Every structure is written in C-alpha cells, then in structure tokens.
C-alpha cells in the first residue's frame, strides 16, 4: 500500500500545482471584472535551474503574463512581483509545491524574474 500512497501523493502534488495556477487565473479574472487595470494570466514553465532547491520539481517556473488592459512596463512588473513576494505564506506555498522561480512579464517582453528561495524571510 506504500506504493499506492506514493501514487496518491504524486497525483495530489501535481493537482495542487495546477490548482495554484487555476486559483491565480480565477482571481485575476475576478479582479479584472472589478476594475483591476491589468489582465494577468499564470502558467507553469521550466524555470531557472540556478534557483533550484530541495523541493524543486521538473517544471519549476511560475510565470505571470499580461493579457490585456493597461500597458505593464518593467516598473509595474516589479511592483506586482514585490507584492506577491511580500506575502510570505504565498512564497512558502509556492516553494512547497515545487516552484523555484517566479517570472512576471509585461508588454514588449520586459519583466522581472527572481528565485523564491532567496526571498524567504527567516
């Protein structure tokens, strides 16, 4: 039954990662409907191997892209990144689920990328 439990855990982890992306996209749609200036979308990417930690999965990047609304320049990308990263509970959850890199890209490919592990406050 240990193999069965492991399989259940593996499926559970994979679905939890998809849940995080789905929760983000759902909040983004709700925020846009309520007047948020940017329409953002999250997706899972390969990440950056330089940011690897012991919980990193194969696809360890959490990428946020702008899909519409106002122009999102690098400064605004940094602001969104700082707000996400100041939420320590969220950073810990992302690390636990196997993400090690957060990427936020706006219009014209400008963006911000950071390793999650370095941003944990002890």
């Amino acid at each position: 039954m240990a193999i069965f439990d492991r399989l259940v855990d593996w499926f559970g982890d994979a679905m939890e990662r998809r849940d995080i992306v789905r929760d983000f996209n759902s909040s983004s749609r709700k925020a846009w409907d309520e007047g948020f200036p940017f329409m953002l979308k999250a997706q899972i990417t390969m990440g950056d191997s330089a940011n690897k930690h012991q919980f990193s999965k194969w696809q360890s990047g959490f990428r946020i892209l702008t899909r519409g609304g106002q122009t999102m320049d690098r400064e605004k990308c940094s602001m969104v990144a700082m707000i996400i990263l100041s939420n320590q509970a969220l950073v810990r959850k992302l690390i636990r689920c196997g993400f090690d890199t957060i990427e936020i890209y706006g219009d014209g490919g400008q963006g911000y990328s950071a390793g999650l592990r370095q941003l944990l406050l002890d």
Partner: protein
Amino acid sequence: MTDTASTDTLAIVLTDSTSGPQNDSLRTSVLAENGSVSENSSNWIPYAVGIGILILVGAAVAAMAYRVAQKRQDEKRREENVFDEVFDDVNNADKAKVLLKELKTKLHPDRFVSSDTAVMEAAQKIFQELNESKYSFSELQRIKEKAVDQGLISE
C-alpha cells in the same frame, strides 16, 4: 455417444442430445495416447482473465482519484484563495504607500527612546513588521490596528 479410435489417438465425440437433433451442440474431446485431455472450447479463459485484470486496474485508478479528490476538497475548505488578497494589495498599492509613510513616521523607534524597555521593544518589533509588509495594504492595516491595541499610537 459414438466412439472412434485411431491407431495413435482415441477420439471421443460427445453429443448433447437433450434438446433434439437440430439444437445439438457438439463437443469434441481428443484423448491423446498418454491420457491427457485438451479442450478446444476453453479459449475464453485468457479473455476473461484480461477483462478481470482491466476491471481491477480501473477500480484501483478510480479509488486513487477519489482519495485525491477528497484530499483536495478538505484542503480547499480550510484555505481561502490567497491570490484574492494579492490582487487587492496590487489594487491598493497607492494607498499602501501613503499608509506606510504615515506609520513609519508614527512608529519610528526613535519616538519611543524615553519610554520603558517593553514599549521600546514592542515598537521595534512593529517597525520591523512594517518593513516586511510594506507593499501589502491589508497587512499595513493590520499592523496599524495592532499598534493601536498596544497603545503605541492613537487612531
């Protein structure tokens, strides 16, 4: 029953005659010289075994999926969507800047130098929390309430 014997094998032809000649079903057994019997009509056994295995595997996958779904449901009930707060904070980024400036002025540790040690330590701790949560309007509001409760600032 009709018996037909050859030099090497003894063939026994069995006829099921209970339902009349037109509904007879014919079963043929070949009795080999060494006495072993093989049945040509038992080809269904491998298929039955295969279907049984498929059913078992399907049941195992279904049980796994059900357990995973139960686990997810339990966790969802416990957790809120953290991203709602993140989007609120992004929306309120300008208000957060104003509130941060106000709190940094009111809660700077230098303002509590002449107070007792406990008050000074509380002020330092809160100021540190301010620096950690400077982008989050909801967190800054919470810190302000905490400072008011501790008597460090008035509303």
